[in-house]
């Protein structure tokens, strides 16, 4: 549970700072766009890893 809280809250400082920085320079619409695309790309990598692992097991 502590690990869950650590990731849930612990990543937030970096996310908040990144969203704030992008919005400061290019506006919040770009912050949405970048965060959404980075999220989709990273989730695709995690999903690919999980599928490969399941196939090899």
């Amino acid at each position, binding site marked *: 549970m502590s690990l869950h809280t650590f990731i849930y809250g612990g990543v937030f400082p970096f996310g908040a700072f990144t969203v704030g920085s992008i919005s400061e320079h290019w506006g919040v619409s770009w912050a949405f766009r970048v965060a*959404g695309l980075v999220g989709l790309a990273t989730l695709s990598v995690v999903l690919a890893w999980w599928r490969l692992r399941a196939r090899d097991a």
Partner: protein
Amino acid sequence: MTLPVGLRALRHRDFRVFFAGQAVALVGSWMQQVAQAWLVLSLTNSPLRLGLVGSLNFLPVLLFAIVGGAVADRLPKRRLLVITQSLLGCQTLTLALLIVTGRVRYWHVCALAVVWGIANTVDLPVRQAFVVELAGRADVTSAVALNSAAFNVARIVGPAAAGLLIARAGVAPAYFINAGAFVVVIVTLLLVRTRGAPLPRLGTTIGAEIREGVLYALRTPRIVVLLAVLLVISFTVFNFSIYVPLFARQVLGRGPEGFGLLMASVGVGAVGGALTLGALQAPSLALLFATGFLSCAGLVVMSTVHGFGVACSWRRPTACAGAS
């Protein structure tokens, strides 16, 4: 009288008292979140500085979350909660007085955000453990469900009320109301008879407990993948307290009322997510990935939205997927 299964935790007198206090506290806490964002933007008009305050709020979680949980098990919970809630109340009251006297500066908000973060890092795990003790093992599911319902209702009511209040009377009243909510919580805690005794010592150190927990998680692939998805979503999607005020001001040109309503619509989405999840017997990894992809896609859609009505309706599914 026999209570429905979902409400059975309310059979316990101490849980009822504690729950009443929490319901008030949650609304106040959401009001303060909206007020804080609006205050920072009014003082600085800088998204970067708003992001920085958000970072400072949660920096202590990054530094102490794992230790906080282990320390919480070793101390009497009720007394610890009275201390953390008093600290949080003082933080809120200080900021309210600084605002009402016209002396508030950006660095005050930053320093008090760190105080809030430190108190919350201890408060959160202790509160979760205390609820289990108040309701008893048999009714813990009902207690968790009731807390979750109160959290989600507050997530709608708090921001909407804060938006209306700030538009009519400024930011200070929202802080004063939350300071009052802390007094209610402290009184209810003092009325609770359960002390929340520390867990019996198992002869292990905090370091050993943390190491064991981390190693267990890393050895279990399902937990690794779950934490990886959580990490991505926390980083990209859960920054509502930064996205929404900026979106309301920069894109929609709205005041605090519009901001409050947008935050409330995020709450409506989160309630939808929680209800969907509650209806499922065993949430699967496929659902986890699907909701993760949906919430990130929701962000991309939000980057093209420029109308208030469309924004409210798109924030809901994004938050809904994120909450699931």
